């Protein structure tokens, strides 16, 4: 059930109508049932996975807490045991469903020259939707209990709702138990401003997904399916993909946050205008924030972070980004993308002192120009990463980058048309909302109401009459 489908519209209206007439306890039970229905709508067989994951982490959380409360010399060992149980379960599920064939494939190839037929190792495994997201979410729960950051809940159904909460179940944002569980356990009140904000976010997310991402997708597919695109076509295709993937994923996050807000929940911001980042570090503070902070808190810091000298810091950065890339999918292009971003972060750290030395005096204009220049450079570095991300093979990466470097083919300005048609309205609308601050945001019901009404009408027209037909979200595959 995609957020941009008729089925979801009906589903959400029913859930919302029921939600606000029920008491808190029944609200949670109904949401749990709705979340399982939502997940089972794709493939009911995978409900057993999410249930298994819930049960194991629920028990592990309680056992760790008991070990903490009972204390004694065995505390650390018992806590570690239950953490390992939880991690083995989470990483085992993820490893099997997502990476099994990725690792057995090369193994099979490697054994073939020795006459060993390892093709039997290959299994036709269907990747359960959203497994990477809810696995990371449950991992953060047990790790936080292990670290003593939070206490587990004894209410099983509420914990099950935390794991399966449908707005963010299949593509994030990856919520921390410390942020979402208290909201589930506590009573929610209907607040008009929050509800309106939620509706706005859903509308805006749909606009990003249906109008911008899905329309750009057609152009991007054309370029990436072309056997020998010109340099300018590659540039336009990659720019378009940058906006497509941003709007696809940010659109999903906005709808997820909007749905949650309509029910009185607050989910974390997942995207914060990532393409205005002036350096790799800033980019990762703005892009897929819930994943990047998860990787920082549970991987990078666990590896030692930047506390053990420069070399180890760089190693930790590289390893974190390598695993971050692998998290996106079991394919070498994602690994390459992760490694590339790791390299960018390391290079930025290396040159940071040099960049800080650049003295522009007191000129605001010069500072602004310098900032814009860095944004443009960073945007293109990110775009280079998107080539690795989107390409289907290494050959395609060589071909596309080779064509750009050789300036192959003529400049066809008509290729800019899809960008002007679909990406420009997005850039304008986002810039307007940022320029006027919260008061200027379409979602707020304060000043400029009549102007906002006109803005909504324009966006609604583009969304309804020029939106591409329903298609899956890119991040569902992760």
């Amino acid at each position, binding site marked *: 059930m995609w957020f941009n489908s008729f089925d979801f519209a009906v589903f959400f209206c029913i859930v919302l109508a029921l939600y606000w007439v029920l008491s808190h306890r029944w609200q949670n039970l109904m949401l749990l049932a709705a979340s399982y229905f939502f997940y089972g709508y794709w493939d009911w067989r995978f409900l057993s996975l999410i249930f298994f994951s819930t049960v194991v982490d629920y028990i592990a959380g309680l056992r760790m807490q008991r070990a903490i409360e009972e204390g004694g010399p065995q505390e650390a060992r018992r806590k570690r045991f239950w953490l390992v149980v939880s991690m083995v379960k989470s990483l085992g599920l993820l490893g099997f469903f997502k990476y099994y064939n990725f690792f057995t494939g090369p193994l099979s190839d490697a054994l073939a020259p020795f006459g060993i037929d390892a093709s039997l190792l290959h299994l036709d495994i269907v990747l359960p939707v959203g497994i990477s997201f809810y696995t990371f979410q449950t991992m953060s729960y047990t790790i936080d209990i292990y670290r003593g950051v939070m206490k587990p809940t004894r209410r099983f159904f509420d914990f099950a709702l935390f794991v399966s909460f449908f707005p963010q179940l299949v593509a994030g944002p990856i919520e921390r138990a410390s942020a979402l569980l208290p909201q589930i356990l506590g009573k929610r009140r209907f607040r008009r401003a929050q509800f309106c904000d939620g509706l706005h976010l859903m509308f805006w997310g749909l606009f990003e997904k249906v109008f911008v991402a899905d329309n750009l997708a057609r152009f991007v597919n054309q370029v990436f399916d072309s056997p020998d695109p010109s340099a300018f076509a590659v540039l336009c295709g990659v720019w378009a993909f940058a906006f497509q993937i941003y709007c696809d994923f940010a659109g999903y996050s906005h709808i997820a946050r909007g749905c949650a807000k309509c029910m009185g929940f607050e989910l974390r911001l997942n995207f914060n205008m990532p393409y205005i980042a002036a350096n790799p570090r800033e980019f990762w503070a703005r892009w897929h924030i819930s994943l990047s902070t998860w990787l920082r808190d549970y991987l990078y810091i666990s590896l030692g972070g930047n506390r053990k000298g420069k070399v180890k810091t760089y190693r930790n950065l590289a390893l974190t980004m390598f695993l971050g890339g692998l998290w996106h999918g079991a394919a070498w292009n994602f690994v390459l993308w992760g490694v590339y971003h790791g390299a960018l972060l390391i290079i930025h750290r290396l040159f940071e002192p040099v960049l800080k030395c650049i003295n522009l005096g007191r000129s605001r204009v010069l500072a602004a120009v310098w900032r814009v220049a860095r944004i443009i450079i960073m945007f293109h570095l990110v775009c280079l990463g998107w080539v690795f991300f989107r390409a289907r093979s290494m050959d395609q990466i060589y071909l596309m980058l080779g064509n750009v470097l050789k300036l192959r083919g003529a400049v066809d300005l008509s290729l800019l048309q899809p960008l002007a048609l679909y990406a420009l309205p997005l850039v304008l609308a986002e810039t307007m909302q940022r320029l006027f601050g919260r008061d200027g945001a379409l979602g707020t019901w304060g000043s400029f109401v009549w102007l906002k009404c006109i803005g909504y*009408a324009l966006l609604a027209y583009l969304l309804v*009459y020029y939106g591409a037909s329903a298609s899956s979200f890119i991040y569902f595959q992760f």
Partner: protein
Amino acid sequence: MKIRGIMRVVARGIGLIILFVVMLELCARIDDSLTWGAPFWGHYSYALLSTTDVLGPHSRFGASFENWCINSYGFRGPEITMEKPAGVVRVLVIGASETFGLYESPGKGFPAQMQHMLDVARPGRYQVLNAALVGMTLPRFIHYFHVWLWRFDPDIVVYYPTPASYLHREAPERKTVTRTGPPKKLPETIRLVRKTKTVLQRFIPASIMKWLRQRRIAWVLAGHERRYKSGWMWQHAPAERVGLFKEHLTALIKEVRASGARFVLATHANRFPADRKAWSETDEMMMAGWRRFVPRATGKCLLDMEHETNRVVVELGERLGVPVVDVATAVPSKPENFAHFTDRGAEIVAKALTTEILMLR
């Protein structure tokens, strides 16, 4: 004070809704202007494509609506000169919506595909004029040919019949409605309505759309059955209507021959397999949808009428020496070849007709 406050909020809400809808309508008009070159103000719908004047009902000269364009002489296709270019064989194609090319992609209606195929076979030798109009009946064509179409000096006239038009409540009459005076002014339309309908059809799942359509069709048919006495419905092709078709077709052939043009007839194809057991659910729904336009006819009657009129076409062809292209046989009974052809169906029809035209001397 409190009531006043509520009233203010309600008034503001209504004002915002009105502003929102007005803005959407303005967007729709700007969109139509930019995309189709439509006028910002004034009527804009299918109705723009046809008119009734002294020539009777016909395509409006120079009209356009979305991707349907009529040239300055009332033909669907590119501009032409009234005078036939030297050495060119003019092929005039007449018929209703199937011939007009209502549902095919632009340039894929069967007359347009015929032009392409003829150009490939004999470059520059043939010129196909598509004089079809949606809902046009045979008697109206007789009048239209008599007062207008003959002026284009066609060498060959191809007629693709629409037998179902003889199953309407009122039989097509020889007397044609004409109008004098200035053309009827069409009212302003709300552009948003049609656009919204199209979007809803795309957005609502096919299963729900099918269910809704079935309900609507059943409701319309039930209404007809309640309103009229038993026996009003036709179970078989009514002999008097088949006879009327034969009479009108004979008259058209005479009219065309009187102008010196050669006539080519075609049988009518549909998507329904002869064996009812082989019908799909979509076939059943399409049939019910067809019946909405001809409430007196049962499904069996519609197919019987197709069969009978095709028999008449073949018989007349033999008797009057008119070549007949058996489109009903050429186009297999497949979903993609419903009365309104798909691009593929239109291609098959065009191929069959082109072969016949190339054989004419």
